[in-house]
């Protein structure tokens, strides 16, 4: 059995094993540590002794034993400190019918946790990644990530939230939080906000894997379907998005034959499946926009009026300055650069994005389209100064240098 196959199997079983152990014994925080240790034990034992007949049962047994040890040390410490672990039973008994993986996701993405903690805990408890792997993906020291995860688990423990589905009335909101976390993991991987690499494929792949899992659990949820489609349709362009030297290639200049046709086909099918089903949510709309891009044979042949219309719908759902910015681009591509520049004037007053490199970069592009080279160059340079990712800075400076005004 190859190491890769074992890794895949373990990552798939991780949330099921954790769910089973927490269901049986409680103690989410210690159980999570115990499961990590069981996974680690499997990576050393299985290649040597062979995969057990029932890998899940093996892991549950190993994790339960480890949990007993961890509980003993905790209880011994509490007795030394004369502290008693007491808690009041929640008034609302948890619902009986639910899937453990979904419950774990909802727990890890609980609104009381910060987004950074939600992301880290989700990747560890549901994704089965080690703290070291998560730290590497987010370019922070392992000790920082350990603290973040420990804090998140403590806050779940202290809140005494039961292991079960939240009450019906809260579910939609809680699921939205899960989708947001998955979306953040994806975007962190796709458009790395810091560091020398533009994209970190591991994180996008993990976000897609977890979203696929949610889609299997909730096949009728149109927003889950929309989010999965959005990820696939966006990730499909990844092979064309960077040059051989790691530089950024904007969509208009990408070699579209490099786009992943399989991912596009799957994404398009999901969009077609989700759109007619219910009230259209933001992920479905973004997926629909990505679909229009992916279906276009070239940048000029893109159906920009449709993209502009979809962004308008999206703007009605959420007051998001990034959506306004993208809308301005679509308007410029439909009605000419000046129409787009007019919209930017309003956005520049929005402090959430007014000085963001992306706004300066869009202005620069539109000014270049309009033929105002000097102003375009100035905006490119400003955008490069505001950007934190090195490939993005290099790209923007490159655009600026091309517009030598003398």
């Amino acid at each position, binding site marked *: 059995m190859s190491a890769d196959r074992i890794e895949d199997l373990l990552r798939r079983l991780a949330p099921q094993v954790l769910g089973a152990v927490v269901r049986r*014994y*409680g103690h989410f925080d210690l159980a999570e540590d115990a499961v990590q240790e069981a996974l680690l034990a499997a990576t050393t034992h299985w290649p040597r002794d062979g995969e057990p007949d029932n890998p899940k049962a093996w892991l549950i047994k190993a994790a339960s034993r480890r949990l*007993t040890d961890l*509980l*003993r040390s905790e209880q011994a410490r509490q007795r030394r400190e004369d502290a008693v*672990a*007491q*808690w*009041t*039973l929640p008034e609302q008994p948890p619902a009986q019918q639910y899937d453990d993986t979904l419950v774990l996701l909802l727990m890890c993405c609980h609104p009381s946790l910060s987004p950074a903690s939600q992301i880290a805990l989700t990747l560890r408890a549901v994704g089965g990644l080690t703290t070291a792997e998560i730290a590497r993906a987010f370019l922070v020291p392992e000790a920082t990530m350990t603290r973040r995860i420990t804090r998140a688990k403590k806050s779940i423990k202290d809140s005494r939230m039961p292991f079960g589905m939240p009450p019906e009335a809260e579910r939609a909101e809680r699921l939205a939080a899960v989708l947001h976390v998955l979306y953040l993991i994806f975007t962190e991987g796709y458009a790395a906000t810091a560091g020398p690499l533009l994209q970190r494929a591991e994180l996008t792949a993990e976000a897609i894997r977890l979203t696929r899992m949610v889609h299997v659990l909730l096949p009728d949820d149109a927003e889950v379907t929309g989010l999965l489609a959005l990820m696939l349709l966006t990730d499909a362009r990844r092979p064309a998005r960077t040059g051989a030297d790691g530089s950024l290639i904007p969509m208009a200049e990408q070699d579209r034959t490099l786009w992943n046709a399989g991912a596009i086909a799957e994404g398009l099918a999901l969009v077609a499946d989700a759109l007619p089903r219910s009230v259209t949510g933001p992920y479905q709309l973004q997926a629909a926009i990505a679909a229009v891009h992916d279906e276009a044979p070239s940048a000029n042949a893109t159906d920009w009026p449709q993209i502009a219309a979809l962004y308008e719908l999206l703007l009605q759902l959420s007051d998001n300055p990034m959506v306004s910015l993208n809308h301005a681009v679509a308007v410029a591509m439909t009605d000419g650069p000046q129409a787009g520049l007019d919209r930017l004037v309003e956005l520049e007053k929005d402090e959430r994005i007014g000085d963001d490199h992306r706004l300066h970069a869009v202005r620069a592009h539109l000014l270049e389209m309009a033929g105002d080279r000097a102003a375009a160059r100035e905006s490119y340079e400003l955008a490069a100064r505001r950007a934190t990712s090195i490939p993005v800075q290099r790209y923007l400076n490159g655009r600026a240098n091309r517009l030598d005004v003398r």
Partner: protein
Amino acid sequence: MKYIIMMYGSQQDYDVLVGKPTDKPAMSPEDIAAMHAYMAKFNNELEESGELVDARGLSAPVHARRVQLKAGAPVVTDGPYPETQEVLAGYTIVECESYDRATELASRLINPDAEGEYVDVRPVLDSHEDL
């Protein structure tokens, strides 16, 4: 008449079972296999004679939860037992003709190698009217 035979153990006795040395020496895999074989044979015999009702072992004492009411609200204490406290570790419920028969069965559930080990036998009531 039903009788419950109760077996006791502390967290330390559980450690001995999973091969962890404490004050007492850990049991070897052979000892444990022999013990399981003995218990299986014992239970099989009872099943054949129709006297076995149920036989179960309980998880390690650290997993215990104690539930009490405080100001009317149920409050849970995790791991309420000290490490060395002997607590219920397993039970066998038998249905047999006499207390003496149940006691004789109970005597076979004591580990002859463990000095001082004991089990308790108590008649199970069919209803509260039997009290």
